[in-house]
């Protein structure tokens, strides 16, 4: 699973070559090729954006206008009544708080635990560490969706049924997280550790004082990924939680969809609300996600 691209040490050389190529293209008919490529790109972008745009625009229509023909792109009397109804009556505020709580706690734990494990796997050389690394990679083959029933029994036997701990703890260990940190710490020169040892630093303080601070970019990337996974989790919280006051956002939305008569106005509002946190996080930390070298060992 570990293959893929080692970045080229290219740098300046390729930049120069690339800009040269670009200049040449501009000279001999770059425009002729730029027009179809750009058109194609934007047609595809429009196709990809259309479902979301239609969805969001519809959510601003009053409940009565949702199905009135002819359908209009822009809402005539834009309103946030759907949002309001979802937030107040469908208990979305509670679901929102629950989900945020679960996501934040799980993310902090995941980042911390993955950082420790990744460092141990990268900087120590023991046979049982290698074995444990293989064990962690094996978890990608057996996702919790596959072991629903036995995993449910385990969590129930631990007395965690219907508690947030029951959805947080099983989600903390992720192969992706350990793998990302391991790959990162492999690139940190061993001399750094050796030098600190010679200066008399103890093993764990080397880790805490030197390694943790320099791994901050990886932490942020993993935090964003982890937050996304947990925010979108559906099946495991559905199994674990019994008390409607503990439901997460995804369960709330699904319960609206599963109703006999779907209240589309509330459903659209609730769905759009549920999209906001991730889109905000993404917009703020865009470059950490886009430039992330998240090549391998990835779980959803």
């Amino acid at each position, binding site marked *: 699973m570990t293959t893929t691209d080692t970045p080229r040490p290219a740098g300046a050389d390729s930049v120069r070559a690339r800009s040269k190529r670009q200049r040449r293209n501009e000279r001999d008919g770059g425009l002729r090729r730029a027009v179809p490529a750009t058109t194609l790109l934007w047609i595809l*972008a429009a196709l990809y954006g259309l479902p979301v745009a239609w969805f969001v625009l519809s959510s601003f229509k009053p409940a009565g206008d949702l199905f009135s023909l002819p359908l209009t792109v822009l809402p005539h009397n834009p309103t946030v009544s759907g949002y309001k109804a979802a937030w107040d009556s469908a208990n979305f505020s509670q679901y929102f708080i629950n989900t945020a709580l679960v996501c934040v706690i799980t993310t902090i734990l995941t980042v911390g635990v993955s950082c420790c494990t990744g460092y141990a796997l990268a900087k120590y050389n023991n046979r049982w560490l290698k074995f444990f690394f293989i064990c962690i990679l094996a978890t990608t083959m057996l996702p919790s969706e596959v072991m629903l029933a036995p995993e449910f029994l385990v969590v129930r036997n631990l007395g965690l049924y219907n508690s947030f701990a029951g959805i947080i703890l099983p989600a903390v260990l992720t192969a992706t997280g350990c793998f990302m940190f391991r790959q990162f710490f492999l690139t940190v020169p061993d001399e750094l550790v050796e030098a600190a040892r010679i200066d008399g630093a103890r093993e764990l303080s080397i880790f805490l004082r030197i390694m943790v601070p320099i791994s901050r970019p990886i932490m942020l990337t993993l935090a964003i990924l982890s937050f996304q996974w947990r925010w979108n989790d559906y099946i495991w919280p559905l199994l674990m939680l019994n008390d409607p006051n503990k439901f997460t956002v995804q369960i709330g939305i699904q319960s609206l969809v599963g109703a006999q008569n779907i209240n589309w106005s509330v459903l659209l509002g609730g769905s759009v609300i549920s999209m906001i946190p991730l889109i905000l996080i993404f917009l703020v930390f865009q470059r950490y996600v886009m430039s992330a070298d998240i090549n391998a060992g990835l779980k959803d």
Partner: protein
Amino acid sequence: MTKSAADVSVRPPRKRRSTYTLAPLVLITANVVLFALFFVWPAVIGLVYSFTNYTGVGAFQFIGLDNYQNLFGDSTFYDALSRTLLYTVLVVPLNFVLSLFIANLVVSKQAKGASVARVVFFVPWLISPIVVGVLWRWLFGENFGLINYVIEKLGGSAVPWQSNADLSLGVVVMAGAWWGTAFSMLLFIAAIKNVPVSYYEAASLDGAGPWRQFRSITLPSIAPTSFIVILLNTINAMKEYPLFVSLNNGGPGTSNNLLVQYIYQTGFNRGQIGYASAASFVLMLILMAVAIIQLIVNRRVENR
């Protein structure tokens, strides 16, 4: 004497390294505990229960291979399995082609505004599968959806997106590919950027066109990434559940029930934990087989 001197001068770093056992042990403790609790334990009891008639409470008996035998005689299981495989076979290639194509467009110097377009392609990935299902349901509603409205406006007749099992699966495939494009695209972009530019320069000096360059340079260079994209997408497609639940709830009827939904229903709605565990293990074997086959194929391709 000389030998030990050599030992001292050469060996120390490595030898000293392997003598640290306490620190790494402390560092991985948390994950070892989690691994044992939420991975080894369920896997073991799952395997044990798959040979029993356990219902989640009370006593149970060992019934040998009965669960597995029943499973292979169960037409519902076969339907779920074949529907899952069909979904996988459709969505993985569609996702692959779309994301590779878009990655090439985004990376190419010719297309303008690529950085903005990239964000547009990225947005679907930020939406949860449940909401993706809702979104496509809204778009493809039979009586109220935008798509059918446009089709009718253009003179066609309403397409039964919800009540026809195959069309319904088609909508889920589109939704799945739409959702998954961003992530595969991200991996492809990283891979394509790592292909040395000099290859393309040499090729264009030799008179190779864009399509030729793509086929002879880009595709072989990004083969490892293609492999990972296909593997991850296959595994994800095999265990898809939330998208179906919110888009058509496995319907119409039960025609689009997938394996995870089948496991969920037998295990939790009907309380046949033992039987569901057996189904889980069949799914696990399929996933492992998929991974191993792809590994072998990948080795072959790379060695050639």
